């Protein structure tokens, strides 16, 4: 008994120690720093109450970042799930080489956000623009990344390109777990393809949609790497009578605030991100779970 107790402690110790050192302690420091005047340079940190948080509401760049992050997340959720669903239907159909396509659509997910940001910057700023000028296609002549009203949509398209193959895999697994007799029975009954998809496939895939919505929501909300290398926040635009960066999502706003040594302010923004993410994902999962039960 004594020996097994020693083994228990020894076996959980590395993970628990790393977990406390890397997550728990920094987490509580993080909450504490958000109500201080921490600047990252001085060793003296003073408590200032909720001042950092009340300042955020009147800071145009933060309000702007917060709003476009919500918009970006909504666009992503729709775009990624629709594209992934179509892809999953394709690779589970009777089409030739379906396994090859499935493997291919997943490849972009393997490439990190930093690398694919540069690749897409090249494609959008160089390839498309040079095609546009060579064949005088008006809307291609200026890069989609240089206009404030197209840049968020463009980032969403790039993000969809990266994530669709991954979400597709989740949908495929779900489709393959549906007994094929169900679809075949409907086929014999003469139900057309689209009504079979809507009335049989979609309800049976409710669980997969819960997962995919959660994943697309949380990853879009925390998006940073691709944002950094694709647009670095640009181009400039105006919001609440102040200059702001048109594509600076929340995570990048936090990063830039901290780079400017406004550490406490960055920490307060991060806490807002945390709470928003927590609330939204709790609502999303509970709503979806309720739907799953009903179906």
């Amino acid at each position, binding site marked *: 008994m004594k*020996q*097994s107790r020693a*083994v*228990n402690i*020894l*076996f959980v110790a*590395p*993970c*628990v120690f*790393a*977990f406390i*050192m*890397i*997550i*728990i302690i*920094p*987490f509580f*420091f*993080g909450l504490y*720093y958000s109500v201080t005047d921490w600047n*990252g340079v001085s060793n003296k940190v003073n408590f200032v109450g909720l001042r950092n948080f009340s300042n955020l509401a009147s800071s145009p760049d933060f309000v702007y970042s917060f709003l476009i992050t919500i918009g970006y997340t909504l666009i992503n959720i729709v775009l990624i799930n629709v594209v992934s669903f179509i892809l999953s239907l*394709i690779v589970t159909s009777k*089409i030739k080489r379906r396994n090859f*396509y499935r*493997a*291919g659509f*997943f*490849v*972009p*997910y*393997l*490439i*990190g*956000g*930093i*690398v*694919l940001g*540069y*690749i897409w910057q*090249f*494609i959008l700023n*160089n390839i498309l623009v*040079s095609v546009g000028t060579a064949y005088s296609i008006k809307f291609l002549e200026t890069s989609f990344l240089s206009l404030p009203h197209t840049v968020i949509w463009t980032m969403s398209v790039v993000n969809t*390109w990266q994530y669709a*193959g*991954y979400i597709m895999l*989740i949908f495929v697994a779900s489709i393959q777990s549906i007994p094929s007799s169900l679809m075949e029975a409907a086929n014999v009954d003469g139900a057309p393809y689209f009504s079979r998809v809507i009335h049989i496939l979609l309800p049976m895939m409710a669980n997969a949609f819960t997962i995919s919505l959660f*994943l697309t929501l949380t990853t879009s*909300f*925390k998006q*940073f790497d691709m944002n*950094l*290398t694709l647009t670095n926040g640009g181009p400039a635009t105006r919001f609440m009578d102040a200059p702001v960066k048109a594509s600076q999502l929340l995570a990048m706003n*936090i990063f830039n605030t901290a780079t400017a040594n406004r550490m406490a302010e*960055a*920490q307060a923004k*991060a806490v807002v*991100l*945390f709470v928003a993410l*927590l609330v939204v994902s709790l609502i999303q999962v509970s709503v979806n779970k309720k739907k799953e039960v009903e179906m």
Partner: protein
Amino acid sequence: MSDTVKLRKKNRTLKPEMLVLEILTILLFILFMFPFFMVVLNSAKTSREIIFNAIALPSSWKQLLTNVSLIFNNPTVDYLGAFVDSILITVFSLLVIAVCSSMAAWVLVRNKTWWSTLLFMAFVSAMVIPFQVLMYPLVRWMRVSGSFINIRLLGTIPGIVFAYLGFGSPLSIFIFHGFIKNIPLEIEESATIDGCPRGQIFFKIVFPLLQPIIVTVLILNGIWIWNDYLLPLLVLGSNGRVQTIPIAVTAFAGAYLKQWDLILTSTLIAMLPIIVLYIFAQRYIIKGMVEGSIK
């Protein structure tokens, strides 16, 4: 007779909606692969060639080798060093995560006490904390605690591997936990009766049984760690002695503004290892990704 068979076969393959689907899928596939084609194409060009015509085929594929050697022999960015460091960091982190998390998960499953439930709940709920809340306090905490125990945690490989253990263990423990729950206890009980010490039961009996789920854990963490940018940036610094591939790629893009021949070649080298791995271990990677997301 044989003619009618042939005709029937032909009819089946030429079913109009299948043909449309085939063509649409091929177009979609080309669209998905287009960025990769462009990277390969333009990695084999000089900077001038790219500006002149970004979509044309390169005049000589030898330029690809020239560009690669330019990258590896670059005086400002130690790309080869970053490549080696990235491999070391990924391999050591995966090793530590796989061994430590499976040990911890096993203890947490096999002991049904208040503390094992509490620990498990702590690990699971920590997964909702976004990295942005932790990152700056973590850097400060690693500096302070490192100087306290007189081990450099910032800027060293052991330091970042320790950080990856902290960030990687919650999800990994969760995945192992779900798998170990389904391993019958009888196998371990009979070994206990035979007098096998408790610690050895894990390594001799349980650990070999975990092999399929270890692959899942390695793939999930491997893709993340190889492509990760923010944690290495903060822990190792952008021009520290130890570097990773994503940091080196951003260093290239920063030092050689708009020199797409070098930037694209550096992204090509960054993608290559993971794509080659994917070609050989595609089945495991797809399975691992699906299992990791559904759990």
